[in-house]
């Protein structure tokens, strides 16, 4: 309630806001700090907040013992690759629905959205068996395909809402000038929609990066991304908190940065345009 406030109240509100934000953020900060401690400092009582022997050995050990880079590579391949393919399929579809809508376009959009509502456990068994028979378990192709399909409706929806904001006149002008459909999409629509496409991709990559149902169930080692890498730390072996923290920091840092860039689009993407 932004009404006129006395200076005292303003200070109070500011302090309260910072306190709340700090508490919400604290577990991440704590993980980050713990990742630089020795295992003994990590479980020290009382906890050591800033004054401990900062060390990088956990990061070295995490890479050495559980081969972080392999999992990180899988995460990158899966989240970028799957969504790039998704984008190639989605752009034409979103173009068609935004600029050449038919009577059924709205129903089609709603139906695509409805595929997102299906709980994963509803199809876990057949997908697992199909993948087993096709030799796709623990393969990047198989898991990438699933991740692509999971995000396809969101990608189409987000692109659709962005394309709707582009004046159709410009596309028609290009058409009058004799541009082919492919050229119209590639050289007229795409450059204008770059911000929308970029934020769509950003959100899609974040969602795939953190997807932890299919990746845990379909991947065991070769194709396992970071979600599974972290899950392997659920069975404790002696002192492991500092290593767990280092592994966690490595797993979330890249996506946290991307996430901060895309927070505005997040609202639009995750509410399917219902809240802008």
């Amino acid at each position, binding site marked *: *309630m932004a009404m006129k406030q006395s200076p005292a109240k303003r200070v109070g509100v500011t302090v309260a806001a910072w306190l709340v934000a700090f508490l919400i953020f604290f577990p991440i900060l*704590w993980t980050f700090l713990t990742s630089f401690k020795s295992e003994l400092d990590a479980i020290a009582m009382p906890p050591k907040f800033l004054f401990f022997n900062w060390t990088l050995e956990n990061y070295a050990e995490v890479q050495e013992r559980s081969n972080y880079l392999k999992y990180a590579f899988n995460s990158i391949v899966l989240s970028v690759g799957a969504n790039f393919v998704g984008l190639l399929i989605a752009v034409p*579809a979103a173009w*068609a629905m935004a600029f050449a809508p038919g009577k059924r376009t709205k129903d089609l959009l709603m139906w695509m959205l409805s595929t997102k509502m299906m709980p994963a456990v509803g199809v876990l068994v057949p997908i697992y068996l199909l993948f087993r028979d096709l030799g796709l378990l623990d393969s990047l192709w198989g898991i990438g395909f699933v991740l692509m399909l999971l995000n396809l409706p969101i990608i189409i929806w987000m692109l659709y809402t962005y394309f709707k904001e582009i004046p159709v006149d410009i596309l*028609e002008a290009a058409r009058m000038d004799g541009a082919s459909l492919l050229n119209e999409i590639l050289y007229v629509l795409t450059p204008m929609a770059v911000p929308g496409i970029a934020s769509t991709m950003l959100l899609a990559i974040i969602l795939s990066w953190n997807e*932890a149902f299919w990746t845990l169930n379909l991947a065991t080692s070769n194709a396992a991304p970071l979600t599974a890498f972290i899950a392997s730390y659920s069975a404790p072996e002696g002192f492991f908190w500092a290593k767990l923290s280092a592994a*966690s920091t490595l797993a979330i840092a890249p996506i946290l940065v991307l996430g*901060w860039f895309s927070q505005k689009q*997040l609202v639009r993407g995750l*509410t399917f345009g219902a809240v802008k």
Partner: protein
Amino acid sequence: MATQQTSAAARVLVAPSVILLFLWMIVPLAMTLYFSSLRYSLLDAENIGFVGFQNYAAFLSDPDFLSALVNTLVLVGSVLVISVGGGILVALLMDQPVFGQNALRLMVIAPFFVMPTVSALVWKNLLMNPDSGLFAWIARSLGMEPVVWFTNHPMMSVVIVVSWEWLPFASLILLTALQSLDEEQKEAAQLDGAGALPYFFYIVLPHIARAITVVILIETIFLLSVFAEIYVTTGGGPGVATTNIPFLVYKEALLNFDVGAASAGGIVAVILANIVAIFLMRIVGRNLEG
């Protein structure tokens, strides 16, 4: 204007997406339905036979199902109350003209980008461990006994972790809705001398009501399928104390290898999710017309 030519092209361009999503949705679902009518165990793959609704009867009358259903509802309900209630408060606070608003927003939204396996393990070990977790230290400093979170209050612990993951989402969406409240309305309320509470209940709440509904529906869809947080912390236990429906289906399928029972469970989960989905679709659909 869509000419005949473009609408023909449109159909071709939409086709790949439609076909892929159709295959993804209908084929596995049909297979699940089919499997759910079979006696089919991966341990005894020779002995497959039609059993009609027996798997459903067995799944639905299994005491574990009832407790999984209750656990699912408790988990979804508690997280909704905490994240939406807390989200409204956080959004109201973030909407104030305070110093460093952007930095605050980044801090508040951050947990949403943390992968579920990380949040669950960090909370379980670094914060909630009864011996050397941070909460234990706080409790001892205040002269209290540390809480043995995941052993004595397993469901509450899972609720806390999942609420922390979803509070940022609710806050961000509600903040976005709050910011679209126009200045004139704010000023008018101020001129009329409206108190803080009436202002909230008569002007703010109606304005963000739709956003709250959207948050509730979207969160419900995701919360009905919480899996990784349980998988890496409690493994559904102790006993079945934190086994929700997705986890129960996973256990039937990949630990007990009972395809028939797991499929019946999967179909039950689909029906539950669809009840929620219908409401969400209606709201989004209304938005599409505007």
